[in-house]
C-alpha cells in the first residue's frame, strides 16, 4: 500500500489544458503577438496588437472558432471530442489522441452566402522533450494534428504545437501545408503578463523578433 502511494507520489502530475488570463501575451519569432483579451468559459478571445479579435478554445488544437478578416467572417463548429487529449500524462505511456471534425462556415461579407467546408483532425501527443527557443529552454510536449480532407481523406496539413506546461502555452508551432508544399515554424520569443504586457513593450518585442527573423532569413 505504502509502495503504491510512493509510486503515485513520484509520478509527475498530468499536464492539464492551458488556463489563460486576460493580459497574457505571447510574442513569436515572426513578429506575431497573441494577446488574451478575455475568457468566456472554455473559450478565449484573443487579438494581435492591432487586428480584430478572434475566439478559440483554450484547447489550442481546436482551430479558431470565430473570426473576421477584412469584410469577411468565419465560424467553426466542432464535432467530436478534441478535449479527449487532456490531461496529458507525462509517463512512458503518456501518448494520447483525439479526433474531431471542424465544420467551417465563411462569408465574404455580411450579405454573401455562407460557404461551408469540413475537415477531419486527428491529433496525438508524444513524450516531453527539451526545446530551446528564443524565450528560453523548456520541457515541452509535442502535440501533432493531421488535417484531412473530409471527402478525399487526403492529408492536407499537419500542425505541431510544442506545449510547455511550465509556461502554459506552446513555445513552438510548426505548420506543414502539404498542398502548397510549405513548412512554417514560429518560436516563442517572449511571454508577458499583467501590466508588463502593454502595447508599447509588446510592439517593441514584436518588432525586434521580426527584424531578427528577417536577419536570419537573409
Amino acid at each position, binding site marked *: 500500500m505504502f509502495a503504491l502511494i510512493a509510486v503515485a507520489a513520484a509520478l509527475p502530475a498530468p499536464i492539464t489544458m492551458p488556463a489563460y488570463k486576460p493580459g*497574457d501575451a505571447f510574442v513569436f519569432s515572426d513578429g506575431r503577438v497573441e494577446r488574451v483579451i478575455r475568457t468566456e468559459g472554455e473559450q478565449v478571445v484573443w487579438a494581435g496588437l492591432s487586428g480584430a479579435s478572434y475566439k478559440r478554445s483554450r484547447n489550442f488544437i481546436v482551430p479558431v472558432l470565430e473570426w473576421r478578416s477584412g469584410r469577411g467572417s468565419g465560424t467553426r463548429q466542432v464535432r467530436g471530442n478534441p478535449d479527449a487529449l487532456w490531461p496529458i500524462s507525462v509517463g512512458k505511456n503518456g501518448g494520447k489522441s483525439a479526433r474531431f471534425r471542424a465544420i467551417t462556415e465563411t462569408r465574404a461579407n455580411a450579405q454573401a452566402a455562407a460557404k461551408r467546408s469540413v475537415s477531419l483532425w486527428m491529433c496525438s501527443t508524444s513524450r516531453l522533450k527539451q526545446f530551446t527557443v528564443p524565450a528560453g529552454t523548456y520541457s515541452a510536449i509535442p502535440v501533432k494534428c493531421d488535417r484531412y480532407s473530409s471527402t478525399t481523406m487526403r492529408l492536407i496539413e499537419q500542425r505541431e504545437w510544442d506545449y510547455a506546461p511550465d509556461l502554459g502555452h506552446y513555445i513552438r508551432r510548426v505548420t506543414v501545408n502539404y498542398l502548397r508544399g510549405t513548412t512554417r515554424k*514560429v518560436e516563442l520569443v517572449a511571454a508577458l*503578463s499583467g501590466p*508588463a504586457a502593454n502595447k508599447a513593450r509588446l510592439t517593441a518585442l514584436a518588432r525586434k523578433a521580426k527584424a531578427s527573423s528577417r536577419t536570419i532569413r537573409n
Partner: protein
Amino acid sequence: MQARIIIAYLLMLAMTLAPASVLLHAPLSAQDADGGDDDDGDDDDGEEDIDDPDDEDPGDDVGGDDDVGGNDDVDGGDDVGGDDFDAGSDDDVGGDDDAGSDDDAGGDDDAGGDDDAGGDDDAGGDDDAGGDDDAGGDDDAGGDDDAGGDDDAGNDDINEERDDSDDAGDDDPVDDPGNWELVGGESETARAELDARDRIERDDDGFRYRRGEFIALDLSREDLEELTSNGFEVIASEQLATVDGTLLLLRGPRQLRGEAALDSLEAMADPDSVGYNHLFDSSSVQTKRTRASAPPERQACGCNIGLIDTGVATNLAYFKHVTLVQRAFNAKTPLPKLHGTAVAHLMAGTKRSRAGATRIFVADIFGGPRETSGSSFALIKALDWLAAQNVPVINISLSGPRNPAVAKAIARVSAKGHTIVAAAGNDGPAAPPVFPGAYQGVIGVTAVDGANRIYRYANRGTYVDFSARGVAVPAIDAKGAVRDATGTSFAAPIIAARLARELRAPDSAAAQKAIRTLEAEARDLGPPGRDTIYGAGLISGDN
C-alpha cells in the same frame, strides 16, 4: 501512408454516421435545424476561405507590411470563392476538394501596425513643465533624523491617494490575487494619455523615459565639454558622496529625438556611463482586501536596512516599535503609498525584535511630479543616500530596463560591501529580464504562494536567487488597512531582512557568507538544485 489514410477514412465515416443515426430518431424539425454537416453539397475540404487568425503569415502585428487590408488571398489560396489550389490534381474523387485549403496567406488581420508606442511629437525640449522636481532633493526637512521620525509631514493626505483606496469590486475568489495597480492607480489607457501630456516616451524596448532627458555618471571634463558644445545641457548635477562621482541630468538638443540623441550621447561619452532618464515602476503588483483586521504577529528584523520605494506611512501605529527614517528624492516630502508601506511593514513586523533595534531607511523616489516619478536620476541619488546611512542591505522592489548609469551606481555600492536585494519582476514567466533584479551581484527574489507554487506572473531566469512568499501576503496599506498583497515586490523584503539581520555594517565578505548560509537553508523547490524559477529555493519569512 496508405494505411493511415484508410484508417482516417473509416474514422471519418464513423463520425459522420454516428450523428446521422441519432437523427434517424429525431423529429423532423430537429433534423432540419441541425444544420448537419456535409453531404449537402457544401464544399468539403476547402476549409476557410476567409483567412483565419491561425494563419500565421509573417507579418502581422508589427510594422506591418504584409497583409491586412482584407485582400487576403494572396497566393492563390483561399479566399472566397477561390478554392482550388490544387486543382488539377487527382485525388479527389468528387471533385471539388481541397483546394483552397485554408489558412494562411494573407496572414491575419492585424497588421497595420499602427500601434507603436512612441510618440510623436515633439520637438524637444522645452518641456518640463512640471518642473522637475526637487532638484537636489535634500530638502526634506526632517532629513535624517530618526527617532521615531516621520519626517514626512505629508502623511495626512494619504486619504487622497488613489491607489490606496480599496478596490472597488473586491472580494474575489480565493485564488484571485486581486487588482493590478500601476503607479497612481492608472489604467494602461490613462497612462498612455498622461504620458503623452507629461512628455514621457518609450525606448526601443518599450520602457518609459523622460523625453529629451539623459543621465550620466562620472563624465570626464572633456566629454562634458564636447556634449555641451553639441547642444546637450546640464539640468541638474549631484555630487554623490558614497557612490562617488558626479551624477548629471542632461537635456538633449532640440533637434535630436530619443534614440538619435542617445546615439549622439554615446558617441561622445562612455556608453557605460550614460543612458535615458528611465522611469521605474514600483507598483505593478496585485492587492485585494482581506477580512483580517490585523496582520499576523511577526518580529521586526532587528536590523538596519534601506529601501528604495514609494513613501511609507510612518505615522501608523504598526511602525511604533521601529525607527523609520524617510527622505524624498523626487519631491520635497515623501508621499506615503501602499507599495512602500507594505514593503516596510514586512521588514518591521508587528513587534520589537529580540535581536535588537530595527532601523528602516526609506528613500521615496515616486512622490512628486508624475513626469519624473521613479526616475533613474532619483534612484541613483537614493542609492547614494542609503549607502551613506551605512545600511548593510538595500531592498529595491522596483523593476525597469537596463540602464548603464544605474548599473554603474549599483556596482559601486555593491563594491563597498552593501548588499542589494531586488524583486525579480512580475512581467511574466518568459519575459525579458528586468532590472535591477537581473544585474550581476544583485540578489533577485521571486515569489511563491502559500502552497509554494511559483507566482504566475513572476519573471524567471538565472538571476533568480531565492524564493519567498509573495502571493497574498498580509500587508498594510498607507491607511493602515490590512490587504493581501501579491508580487515579487513583497517577497524581496523577506530575503533582504533575513540578510540584514546577519549583517551589522556593509561588508562584502560577511555578506557572501550570509548569502551562502541562506542558500544552505533554502528549501529546494522545482527541479533539483538551483533553477531559473525558484533560484536556490524557498526562504521562510518566519522570525
